[in-house]
């Protein structure tokens, strides 16, 4: 890359370095061919948020259709496409890449004090694979869309007449490789590029989470790729693998699919848990409670995630013995989840809590994840799951985890690192208002769906019994409320980009390395490899009036592992 333009002094004031990653080089190609992890992260972020808008519009359309029983404004086939597209876009294009590829790409190397990820070219390639996968998904819409549900269950998916099935399968196949390469890159980066002094148990918990996620991405996603290939082969060449009319077995497909897609649930939620560990510690300005338990619970969740897939199939015709074993193992996921929840809650104890926008999202996460996690008990228990399976109860449960936790965590992380990424602050009051609106809208939308489901309303229904209408109306109002919240968030960010106050290097009082380089970071992140302290020891973090931000005063932290003993300072 060449730098043709002079630094823009009209934008950058004198206190910040004139050379940051946004101004380091200019022009379209300097972005399109960049190897800078920060720019790739930003490109991912824009792409993911764009997809989120599309997936969200489909959600609003399908909620609108469900306002009345029977036809509200579209026919059954269109509705089936709405929920299929909503699910497929949100899972494959939004949530899976959102935290690791967008925020992780930006933050991970800086947290490590590194200049970039281990394989910058592979990183860019991952991004273009994502773009390729997204284009195939778009193409599938142009050739008739698809109405299979995001799960592509056979034999429906191999016999449906909608024209976009094979293109979207190819798209998801490609997206899978994007995910694999990102995971591979992060595993190597964490192993090889940690700075001197950062032993495993000094890593920020976000890195533990990203690392656990990367392991799942690398090990599970190839199974999805193989499964999708088999599906394409069956659909195009009529080779019977899953379709019983050609000698195949549809339950085999479900095993293959969930062998990936259950771990995929943790690809989505574990990075969000990492963000929450950061947000709650930083905005409580207090050492994370039980660091080792949280770190190990990330690894435990990653391991358990591979052996619980059968709980998606309790009523599928899988044998009773398998159901029993999978039910028992499924409960094992509850333990590390409970450990994390209690540890986050205890991190608030004796903290110095700032109710900033990221912290509001962190607290929302804690509230919503508690509900999402606890309702998993109903679904893992064999006899109650028989009643609740394939109803709105399950829909509500996984939305509390996938949206209320994973996506809220991602939006919280975005607020947390936004000043670092853009060099601009946003209007705190607006962001908090939006967060509260989203929180209320979310609970209106999905808590009612728990009741719908336990009352017996099956999922993926275009038409329904009149007695369910009141729940659907409340749920739809909730969805509109959430949309308002997200629009306010978008306006808040746009306002920040255009006229936001310049962000200090450390606006929240964080201690990990990303808060010790400028906002936005320079092209190489750090001029010299930084020294590492305890990233959760906030005693050395003090407010600096001149910078309107926090600084780390090293004299207050002798960089000892147990420096929690209070030092009498003159800062009361």
């Amino acid at each position: 890359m060449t730098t043709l333009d002079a630094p823009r002094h009209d934008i950058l004031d004198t206190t910040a370095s004139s050379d940051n990653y946004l101004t380091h080089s200019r022009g379209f190609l300097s972005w399109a061919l960049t190897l800078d992890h920060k720019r790739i992260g930003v490109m991912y972020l824009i792409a993911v948020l764009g997809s989120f808008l599309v997936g969200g519009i489909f959600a609003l359309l399908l909620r609108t259709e469900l306002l009345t029983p029977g036809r509200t404004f579209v026919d059954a086939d269109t509705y089936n496409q709405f929920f299929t597209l909503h699910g497929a876009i949100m899972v494959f294009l939004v949530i899976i890449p959102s935290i690791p590829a967008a925020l992780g790409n930006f933050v991970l190397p800086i947290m490590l004090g590194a200049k970039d990820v281990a394989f910058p070219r592979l990183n860019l390639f991952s991004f273009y694979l994502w773009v390729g996968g997204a284009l195939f998904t778009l193409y599938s819409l142009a050739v008739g869309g698809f109405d299979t549900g995001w799960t592509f269950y056979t034999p429906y998916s191999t016999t449906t007449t909608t024209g976009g099935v094979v293109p979207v399968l190819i798209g998801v196949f490609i997206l899978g490789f994007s995910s694999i390469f990102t995971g591979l890159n992060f595993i190597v980066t964490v192993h090889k590029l940690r700075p001197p002094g950062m032993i495993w148990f000094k890593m920020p918990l976000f890195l533990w989470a990203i690392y656990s996620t990367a392991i799942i991405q690398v090990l599970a996603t190839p199974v999805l790729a193989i499964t999708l290939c088999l599906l394409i082969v069956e659909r195009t060449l009529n080779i019977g693998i899953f379709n019983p009319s050609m000698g195949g077995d549809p339950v085999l497909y479900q095993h293959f699919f969930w062998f990936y897609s259950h771990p995929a649930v943790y690809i989505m939620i574990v990075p969000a848990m990492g963000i929450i560990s950061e947000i709650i510690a930083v905005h409580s300005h207090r050492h994370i409670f039980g660091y080792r338990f949280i770190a190990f619970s990330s690894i435990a969740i990653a391991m358990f995630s591979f052996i619980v897939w059968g709980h998606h199939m309790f009523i599928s015709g899988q044998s009773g013995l398998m159901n029993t074993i999978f039910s028992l193992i499924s409960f094992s996921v509850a333990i590390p989840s409970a450990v994390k929840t209690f540890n986050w809650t205890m991190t608030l104890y004796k903290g110095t809590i700032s109710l900033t926008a990221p912290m509001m999202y962190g607290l929302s996460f804690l509230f919503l994840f508690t509900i999402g996690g606890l309702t998993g008990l109903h679904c893992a228990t064999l006899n109650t799951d028989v009643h609740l399976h394939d109803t709105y109860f399950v829909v509500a449960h996984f939305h509390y985890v996938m949206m209320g936790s994973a996506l809220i965590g991602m939006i919280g992380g975005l607020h947390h690192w936004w000043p670092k990424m853009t060099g601009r602050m946003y209007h705190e009051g607006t962001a908090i208002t939006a967060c509260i609106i989203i929180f209320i809208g979310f609970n209106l939308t999905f808590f009612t769906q728990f009741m719908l489901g336990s009352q017996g309303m099956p999922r993926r229904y275009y038409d329904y019994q009149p007695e369910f209408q009141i729940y659907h109306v409340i749920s739809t109002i909730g969805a509109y409320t959430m949309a308002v919240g997200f629009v306010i968030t978008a306006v808040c960010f746009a306002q920040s980009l255009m006229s936001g106050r310049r962000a200090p290097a450390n606006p929240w009082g964080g201690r990990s390395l990303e808060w010790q380089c400028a906002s936005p970071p320079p092209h190489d992140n750090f001029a010299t490899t930084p020294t590492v302290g305890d990233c959760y020891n906030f005693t050395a973090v003090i407010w600096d009036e001149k910078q309107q931000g926090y600084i780390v005063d090293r004299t207050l932290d002798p960089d000892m592992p147990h420096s929690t003993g209070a030092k009498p300072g003159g800062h009361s």
Partner: protein
Amino acid sequence: MPSIASTLLAQTPSPLTPADFWLPIGASQQAAGVDWMFTAINWICYFFFLLVVTMMVVFVVKYRGKPGARFRSDAPTHNTLLELSWSVIPLLLCIAIFWYGFKGYVDLSTPPKNSFDVNVTAFKWGWQFKYPNGAQSDNLVVPANRPVRLTMRATDVLHCCFIPAFRVKKDIVPGRYSTLWFQCDHPTGLDEAAGYHLFCAEYCGTGHSNMNRRVLVLPQAEFDAWMVKQAAWLDEIPDDELYFKAGPKIYARCQQCHSLDGTAGLAPTWQGLWDRVANPTGAVRFTDGKSYADLIGPGKEFPTPQDYVRDSIYNPGHYLVAPYGNVMPTFKGQLNDRGIDAVIGMMQHLDEFNAKGVWTKATSAKDPAK
């Protein structure tokens, strides 16, 4: 909890539990066990949810930092005993929940030996329930106070039989049989409005949400009488009245895809269909390029138009009229020869029916039979 074994094996009728905030009406022997488990888990959830949220709110209020204040540094960084306890206590609770759920599940999935058998066929998009004496029904009619076992199969894609009031559900997988059992002690009569809902819970395409039927529960004596009457309904109709008495009833299962008035649907309209097959031309093409004229007629694959219609019903994927897809399930074993006769008769006299398949000739002519 009520001992599940004693609840299920007892000869005393199970209580009818009314709908509450969470659960719908419970009308089967199994409902009590599932509901007890569901409620027990709910209380565990309430407890832990309130614990976490209360702690969260109290801590946030109490430890809210003042702007510019020095950060506290007296907070504990970990407490192994505390952390072990909140690992082990949930673990023990989970094992207990698993155990009771497992016991309940064993009862849910073990039909008693004296069960009454009903054969179920699920297809896009409807159900057929068949009884030991050959009777067939679109709604699930079962005897009360007796275990009923459904042996289910699907003709096309995955379906799933779900009866919320009975707390039972099972996927129906093409190519294999699956079973489901329940016992209901609360008769409803034959009035559909009083019946319990039966849903398809596994997504199966356009008409997925229109597969809802009713479970109608009759006392044993009434049920026996119903079964005898139901088995004979096609035979009791005189031949010349078959097409307008049986035709519309059978057509109810075809109408989701085949219109009578030329409206475009998922399959060819029946309007003018008989003319087209009785006078086959090259105009109607199949997806393989052949036409009606190539296949229908003396000496050809289908010597009479009746042969062609019969084959289309029993073997729908054999020849597909372009541009329609292979979406129709087979009706082999569901429609007998008299049923086929009724359908063909209806096609031949389509001018006597309105667009909804209601026979309108009765008002215009005295003698319906030609």
